[in-house]
């Protein structure tokens, strides 16, 4: 009983932290984009207003059950990965449900949300959604390959499929995996560009071209769920990268600093890039990132 309460509490706290940090990052993204474009831009807390407003909108759209479930799938994925990824090095304040083999599980669960959303978007019958979904799944085929290669390289090199083991290893040796398996890190970071779906890989929700793609029929509360799930998921992914490659974090401040530095990579890359076409995006991921992934595996096997 004590344990269950503790886990529930941990889940709640992690969610609130992830939500706040994630939404703030998105707001900072808008602010920084605006500054780069020589605008003043919205305040950094703008996205809190947006989320609150979306949550308070009334919704009377009905296309079928799957449409209502789509955003829920994304939320479930986000929360589930958040609960598995260790947030801090010592688990006292954020107890979570990691287990041996969670790295493999994560690989699966991270594509679960987009697939659920694809079903939901399909049911709205909006042609833009259908195009968005095909683009999204193609892009996923693109960036999943270097991403999986990077993780497999880590698994081979350190003979473990547990995130906590990898973190402990870094804590013991004092060397970040970023330096001991640089190719895996490169492949994973390049794959991250696709995961965040910022330009040039925003081919899924291209607002001017596809009218925001899969979510074009989803307004109000659906968008609210998607936006919160997106920010929680962004935080979870960034934390995963920090855990795997940058030695985890001992407290929240270090975690925020590290994740923000990582977050700057897709953000700044996106601000100065136009949009790729679908096949260009896939070619990109199957080029250098996959090569780095391959090198990482070779390094893991032979060195």
């Amino acid at each position: 009983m004590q344990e269950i309460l503790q886990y529930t509490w941990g889940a709640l706290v992690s969610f609130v932290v992830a939500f706040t940090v994630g939404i703030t990052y998105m707001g900072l993204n808008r602010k920084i984009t605006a500054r780069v474009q020589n605008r003043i831009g919205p305040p950094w807390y703008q996205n809190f207003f947006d989320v609150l407003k979306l949550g308070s909108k009334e919704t009377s759209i009905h296309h079928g059950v799957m449409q209502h479930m789509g955003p829920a799938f994304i939320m479930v994925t986000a929360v589930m990965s958040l609960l598995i990824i260790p947030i801090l090095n010592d688990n006292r304040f954020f107890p979570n449900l990691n287990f041996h083999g969670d790295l493999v599980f994560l690989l699966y669960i991270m594509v679960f949300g987009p697939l659920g959303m694809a079903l939901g978007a399909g049911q709205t019958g909006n042609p833009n959604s259908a195009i968005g979904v095909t683009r999204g799944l193609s892009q996923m085929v693109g960036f999943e390959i270097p991403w999986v290669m990077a993780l497999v390289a880590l698994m081979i090199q350190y003979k473990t499929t547990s995130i906590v083991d990898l973190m402990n290893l870094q804590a013991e040796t004092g060397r970040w995996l970023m330096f001991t398996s640089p190719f895996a890190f490169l492949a994973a970071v390049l794959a991250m560009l696709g995961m965040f779906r910022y330009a040039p890989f925003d081919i899924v929700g291209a607002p001017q071209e596809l009218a925001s793609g899969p979510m074009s029929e989803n307004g109000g509360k659906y968008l609210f769920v998607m936006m919160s799930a997106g920010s929680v998921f962004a935080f979870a992914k960034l934390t995963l990268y920090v855990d795997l490659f940058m030695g985890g974090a001992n407290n929240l401040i270090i975690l925020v600093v590290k994740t923000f530095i990582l977050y700057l990579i897709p953000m700044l890359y996106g601000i100065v890039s136009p949009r790729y076409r679908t096949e260009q995006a896939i070619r990109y991921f199957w080029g250098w990132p996959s090569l780095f992934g391959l090198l990482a595996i070779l390094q893991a096997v032979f060195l």
Partner: protein
Amino acid sequence: MMINDKNSQKIVDIIQNYARKHSLWILAYGTGCGAIEIPPTMTSRYDAERLGVRGAATPRQADVLLITGYLTTKTLKRVIRVYEQMQDPKYVIGFGSCTINGGMYWDSYNTIKALDRYLPVDVFINGCMPRPEAVLAGFAKLQELIQAGKADGARKYKENLEWYRANQKKVIPNWRMPEYNW
């Protein structure tokens, strides 16, 4: 219940209106020449995103329908469908003299004159065409109305649906649409 009690509802309203007012997602439906003033309003010179004004991609996600100028009867039909697909709370801004009294199209055979006979308009911005400053002033006015809870065009539209429908059907001869779209 606490939630249904009048005072707590008031507090909730104030918070919600505050959020709504600072987050206006506009659907700029470029119907007339006035639409050319939207890009300068959104980009670096005037930067409407400062006020939380931001473009929305589809009617489902939008809060504000920006009708930029004259409406031909053909466009009016689409505008009505777009308006009815938007989710509550939603607002309409009539942009330019053409939406107020027909502007320089007042004797045209195929444009409508007073927009608020067909759709409930919350804020009019006059001028032909209004400069971005005027557009920003219009947004500020809308924000004021929202905070005061007076931007209730959508409610008016629902209450007087027959009147609006009759007006709309008068000018749209080939009415082949569902009776309502929300």
